[in-house]
Every structure is written in structure tokens, then in C-alpha cells.
């Protein structure tokens, strides 16, 4: 979405036919994130004050740096975010990502991702716009079908 004005607050939501616990596992366990999150492994104990890291699946290259701010499984996860995969985004200050998991009627769970505090991180804002929708649709497909999207796993 390169034509879109870079937004300092970005909100994405998806309805997934899964339990809140399954969605929590989907966003916190590396065996899941590798299948939909641009092939990356999430590494964290998910305790406030500890690191939230994203690593390339095929090596130890760190792609995202962050710190867990709040963790309430299977409801809320909040962490900071600094993308290291591009020197321009790596030079920007930390932004913030909040995952909110809410059970709905009929065995459906709503997952909302808010990426904010991007005012001082325009390159990061540009880089993640378009990325989150891809990540969330991949997570939905994975949890509902057990399979990654066909064009996933880059």
C-alpha cells in the first residue's frame, strides 16, 4: 500500500474460527509464526520486561527487536517493535504493537492488531502497512485449515 498516507496508528482485525487459546498459541509459538509471519520465529517468554524478538527461520538473523509490555494470555499482548530488516527502519524509535483477542458468538474469535506510536517512525509505518493484513490472513488460514497460504513461507 505505497500510495496510502503513512498512518501513525494502524488497526487490523480478523475473525478466526478458533478458540482464544488457539489464537494465542498462533501468535506466541514459533512453530506457528514460521508458517505465516514471513517465515519468522518469535522468541520470547512473554513476561513483561523481557525481550520480544523475531528471527529469520533459517538462521539467527534478528528481524524485529522489542520488549514485552503487557501479557495476559489468552487476551492481550502488548510489545514494542523496531524492525531491523532495513537500516532505515532500524534507525527509527520503537513503536508499539497490541494484540487483542476477544471471543465472539459461534466459536469465532476476533483478533485485533493495533500498531501505533508510529509518529516518529514513518519508514516503519510504510513498511508494515500492507504487511499486517498479509500476516493476519495467513494466521486465519493456518488456524482454520492447518495449512499455510499457498504463497506463504517466503
Amino acid at each position, binding site marked *: 500500500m505505497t500510495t496510502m498516507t503513512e498512518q501513525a496508528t494502524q*488497526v*487490523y482485525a*480478523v*475473525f478466526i474460527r478458533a478458540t482464544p487459546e488457539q489464537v494465542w498459541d498462533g501468535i506466541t509459538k514459533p512453530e506457528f509464526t514460521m508458517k505465516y509471519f514471513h517465515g519468522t520465529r518469535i522468541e520470547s517468554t512473554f513476561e513483561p520486561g523481557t525481550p520480544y524478538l523475531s528471527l529469520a527461520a533459517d538462521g539467527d538473523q534478528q528481524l524485529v527487536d522489542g520488549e514485552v509490555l503487557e501479557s495476559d494470555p489468552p487476551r492481550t499482548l502488548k510489545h514494542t517493535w523496531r524492525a531491523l530488516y532495513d537500516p532505515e527502519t532500524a534507525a527509527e524509535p520503537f513503536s508499539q504493537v497490541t494484540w487483542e483477542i476477544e471471543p465472539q458468538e459461534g466459536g469465532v474469535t476476533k483478533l485485533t492488531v493495533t500498531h501505533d506510536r508510529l509518529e516518529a517512525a514513518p519508514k516503519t509505518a510504510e513498511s508494515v502497512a500492507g504487511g*499486517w493484513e498479509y500476516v493476519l490472513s495467513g494466521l486465519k488460514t493456518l488456524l482454520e485449515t492447518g495449512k499455510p497460504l499457498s*504463497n506463504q513461507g517466503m
Partner: protein
Amino acid sequence: MPSDDDLVFRALADPTRRHLLDRLYERDGRTLTELESELEMSRFGVMKHLRLLEEAGLVVTRREGRQKLHYLNPVPIRLIHDRWIDKYRERQVSTLADFKSELEDTA
């Protein structure tokens, strides 16, 4: 109960709602008052359209202080794309590829 896709297609099948999505695409996180000022429609009419967009998941709202801000959520459109567009485009591409190799074989 309509499926997720039904809600999205229904929401998109109206020019005012597509216009609202385009306005949010240009600038996200807007109030009802801001959106209403760009449309020749009553506040109630705009509210009704926003509610349908929200039910389809195309718009997500957040409270910020006393304001309710509307955000464009592109995820349902991505899902429609994956389900309804990518699939047929692949077929079209492979048909063209077959056509090309057929032409080259006979040449």
C-alpha cells in the same frame, strides 16, 4: 446467518460505502463528523453505512478519549483476494502460458 464473504460483498456493493473506504484509505482514524462533512448525506445515513462496514469487518473503531475513530481494515479484502481473485488469475496465467508454448511449438 450470512457468511463473512457475504457480508463483505454486500458492504462493497454500494457506492457510498466504497467512497467511505476510499476516504479512510487516504487518511485513517477519522470521526463520524469528519466523514459526514465529505458526503451529501445525513449523519444518520453515514452512521448506517459505517455500521454495515463495521459488521463486515471492513471498518474497525477505536475510542480515543471522547472520540470514536474509524479505521479501514484491509484484512477482509485480502481474504476475498486470496479466495476469489488469486485463484482465477493463476488459471488465466497458466492458460496464457499454455497458449504461448502451443504457439512456439507450432512455429
